[in-house]
């Protein structure tokens, strides 16, 4: 199937649930052939953004640009599969729902089962799959029709590291095939693999850009030491302490570290709300 558009996303998006503001003035673009990561903590607005992109939530403000329903793939934060259907039946249902012909369905189901490693489990009920296998099935169902825009809401949450890596390989391959992929995640190491990153906090954009742009835009210096530095915001990282020095000076007993997205996200949140130091 041909992909007809290369720029999906939203501009000035606002989402409200009654009096609660879930998203405010968020602008975001998902480009064809690339993975865009939406990151943020609980309640940041990731799911609301993805739902607005998918069309299951009505925007209170702004515009959303998305392909027609038949050209959209979506994996919700829930199981995303019918647990009382087999792997084969789930894939067949998804394929038929998106209008695949019997031949296309056969070809795609066979290919997806091989690609996801689910071929051996094709007759197993989805409810009896492991968490990782179930997420792979949900992803396979969402890409069965080769969508233009693929939206995934935390597909790797609660999934073991090996399955996480496999899931990322699959969605990277969808992007390589030309889809615009939007994935929400709480894992910042995953987000570093994305072409662009949007960091949300309490419904607003904190950071946006390529991972390099986000890192470059982080002011000051992030340092690391064995003990908690005094007088500057700090947080645990493994067995050691990291701290952000806004003026770029390294406190005694610390040394500068190479900044990563996790540091950048914490610094962005600290700048927004200095009281949040760990």
């Amino acid at each position: 199937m041909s992909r007809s558009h290369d720029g999906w996303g939203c501009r000035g998006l606002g989402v409200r649930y009654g009096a609660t503001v879930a998203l405010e003035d968020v602008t975001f673009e998902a480009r064809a052939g690339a993975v865009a990561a939406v990151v943020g903590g609980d309640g940041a607005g990731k799911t609301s953004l993805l739902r607005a992109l998918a069309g299951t939530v009505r925007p209170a403000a702004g515009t959303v640009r998305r392909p027609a329903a038949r050209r959209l793939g979506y994996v919700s934060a829930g199981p995303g599969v019918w647990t009382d259907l087999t792997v084969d039946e789930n894939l067949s249902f998804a394929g038929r729902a998106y209008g695949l012909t019997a031949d296309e369905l056969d070809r795609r189901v066979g290919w997806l089962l091989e690609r996801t490693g689910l071929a051996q489990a094709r007759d197993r009920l989805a409810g009896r799959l492991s968490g990782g296998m179930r997420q792979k099935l949900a992803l396979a169902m969402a890409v069965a029709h080769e969508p233009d825009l693929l939206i995934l809401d935390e597909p790797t949450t609660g999934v073991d590291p090996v399955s996480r890596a496999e899931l990322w390989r699959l969605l990277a391959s969808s992007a390589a095939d030309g889809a615009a992929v939007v994935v929400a995640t709480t894992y910042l190491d995953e987000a570093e693999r994305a072409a662009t990153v949007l960091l949300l906090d309490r419904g607003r954009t904190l950071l946006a850009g390529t991972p390099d742009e986000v890192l470059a835009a982080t002011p000051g210096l992030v340092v690391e030491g064995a003990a908690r530095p005094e007088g500057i915001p700090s947080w645990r990282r493994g067995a050691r302490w990291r701290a952000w020095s806004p003026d770029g000076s390294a406190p005694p007993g610390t040394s500068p570290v190479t900044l990563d997205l996790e540091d950048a996200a914490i610094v962005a949140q600290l700048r927004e709300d200095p009281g949040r130091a760990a």
Partner: protein
Amino acid sequence: MWAMAMKEFRQMRRDRRTLAMMILLPVVLLIVFGYAASFDVDRVRTVVVGPRAEQVAAALPGRLDVVRVAPGEGRQAAVEALRDADAAVAVVTGDAGQPQVLVDGADLFSARAVVTELRGRPGLPTPEVLFNPGLETSAIMVPGLMGVVLVFVGTIATALGVVRERQSGTLEQLAVMPFRARDVLAGKLLPYLGVAVVDLAVIVAVGVLLFDVPFNGSPLVFALGAVEFLFVTVGIGVLISTVSETQGQAIQLAIMTMLPQILLSGLIFPLQAMAPAVRWIGYLLPLTWFVQLARGVMVRGAPLEAVLLPLGMLAVLGAVVFGLSIARFRRDLAPAGRHRDADPDAADQAEEAPSRAGAR
């Protein structure tokens, strides 16, 4: 122990629907059913025909509530009046001698009251019971119980089926797929309707073969009424599913809709024995009309024109309930208002206009 009780109390307080059911429902049910739970029929609708109709009508016992006096009509018209449920008793007078008293055996409690009264008085004619000569309870109950079975299948199974999608999170998945709301609903309901139709055929066969329930009327008319009734019950199931988050809530609500139907539909207690206000509640319930239709067609052999009222009422209830359930289901499925009404192939892109209204 106290910690457990406090936890339970807090949970109970937050589950307002269950709390309301525990506190308010018994009171409401007691009041409503207190006025409904009566087998005593004080007034029996009666027609009097034949040459001495005027004279005999004036001399009938007070229980017989004469609704029509037709000196120009004969036995045939009297039988038709009973068959069409215009009356439960018909008195056929001749030029001389004892009049004939025909009693509708399908109106069990009225018939029993009249038969008991007339047989106990010397000099009065012996009543002739039509349609259900043995005054068998099963002949009257089984057609109505078919309706109860259909309510179980239609309402509870449907409500659970739809709520299961919501509870498992797959309703959101369906909302994104290129289905119209009516396609999702129709596809979802078709298997339940199919099972209910099979159920209906089985219980009719069991009723006729095992309980010797007569089937005197047209199977087509019965099928038409049963399908209408199924649509109402399935519609109620969908409606319940749209206001229930969990399967437990759906079952609670389904029971709350079923109990009044079973008790106020005339299935157990005769409608004419109920207080007028309670009887009018009964007239709003689909089972009331199915019971009338099923007893009419199966036991009395009522033709289509005699059951137009139950058929019409079921059609109206079906339209109202199904219309509401589709509207609510569509809102659940497509809060963003996309893809649902338009052809999913037609929209190549969807530039959403900003809306002043917030999300749900």
